[in-house]
């Protein structure tokens, strides 16, 4: 019988190694798997490469992971959200590396990584600083930039409901990068507010099929970055 449930967020992230590449879902606070990120802070892995659209706000979640000094490099499209101070301070102090990627290219690189596509050409960023130093080729008279697929060792994402086989459905704009990130790593870990036995989800409505998911953790009432920040929280 397939059962991908793990007892806790702590158990689910126990084997993340130093130097691991970790994809973390979320666009702003929507879809940010805060409990998994906090478990990763407790677990202690360092020199991480984090692939995520943003870099967190306040002193919780992604920002707390950065503040704890666990991240060597960030692959990201927009690292300066309002309320974000941890990353800018670390970046200006030269304590974290940044690979800036256009948002659509980031999504497509992750999708490609998960689909076994080594690289692809896109006109996005051609002729700009973010296209510099990359292979280019003209298609239909237009310059395209070669972008490489991205893969990770671990992916941390947040679902609304998952089943024991790892099928996942999301909540509104919390979906964002999670479906691609689930496909692109060796070990995908999902925290879900509801976990049900296989057979209870509408198979027509499943967004991420269970084959892409390795571990499911039940987090009944996931925290929200904005609520934690309003309360002045910091982690740990």
């Amino acid at each position, binding site marked *: 019988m397939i059962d991908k449930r793990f007892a806790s967020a702590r158990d689910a992230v126990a084997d993340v190694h130093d130097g691991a590449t970790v994809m973390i879902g979320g666009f702003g606070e929507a879809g940010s798997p805060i409990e998994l990120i906090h478990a990763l802070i407790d677990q202690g892995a360092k020199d991480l490469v984090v692939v995520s659209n943003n870099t967190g706000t306040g002193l919780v979640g992604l920002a707390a992971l950065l503040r704890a000094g666990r991240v060597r490099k960030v692959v990201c499209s927009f690292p300066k959200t309002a309320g974000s101070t941890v990353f800018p301070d670390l970046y*200006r102090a030269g304590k974290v590396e940044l690979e800036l990627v256009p948002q659509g290219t980031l999504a497509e690189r992750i999708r490609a990584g998960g689909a076994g596509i080594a690289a692809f050409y896109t006109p996005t960023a051609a002729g700009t600083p973010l296209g510099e130093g990359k292979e280019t080729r003209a298609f239909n008279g237009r310059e395209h930039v070669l972008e490489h697929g991205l893969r990770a060792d671990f992916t941390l994402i947040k679902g609304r409901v998952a089943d024991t086989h790892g099928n996942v459905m999301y909540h509104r704009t919390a979906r964002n990068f999670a479906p691609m990130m689930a496909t692109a790593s060796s070990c995908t870990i999902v925290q879900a507010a509801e976990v049900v036995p296989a057979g209870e989800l509408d198979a027509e409505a499943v967004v991420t099929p269970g084959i892409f998911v390795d571990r499911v953790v039940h987090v009944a009432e996931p925290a929200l970055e904005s609520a934690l920040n309003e309360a002045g929280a910091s982690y740990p």
Partner: protein
Amino acid sequence: MSAAPKDRAADAAPAVGWSRDGIAERVAQDIPSGSYVNLGIGIPELVARFVPGGRTLVYHTENGLLGMGPSPAAGQGDPELINAGKRRVSMMPGAAFFDQATSFAMIRGGHLDLSVLGAMQVAANGDLANWSTGADDAIPAVGGAMDLVAGVKRVFVMTTHVTKEGTPKLVERCTYPLTGRGVVTRIYSDLAVVDVTPRGFELLELAPGVSYEFVKERTGAPLLRDRMRQQGP
């Protein structure tokens, strides 16, 4: 989106030309009903308030929603129903959610009709700079801007004609880092509507009370006027 009350304080009448709301209203007139539109964060969002009655536009927000509706009152709404500016929004009947690869397939695959963006500089050849000053202490952040300009069918720029210091934003060549090459279709400024064509900047329309000479002096590249429309009363 439905019309929201204007913010009178923020829309104080400028010394000359269109106010921010005035530019937004002018842009809105040029968007056909049924268009799929992505409005950039900030000033371009104002366009939604001025869509003429009877027209329906479908708003795309690149974080994964087509059919975006107005923001709810402060403190209301769903923290996981947000727009690309990370502000809470609502959804209209017929809305759909999707992941980032699908969202950017809409953008990069040429499915969106129009993107309205802000600008730091626009060049006479259509180059756009709107994501970074390139300053040493700046935190570089690009989001979906480069994807939008590379993939959306038409790109409108909404901007003040000059910077706060009075430097032209319409220039011969951009000096800031580019967002994309040859991507801008048309510019709506506080002083004029300007097309970007193979011949360079072509003046289409002047804001009320603004003369051609006044705009020309504040434009950093030649400004053709043989296609200029007659001004209304």
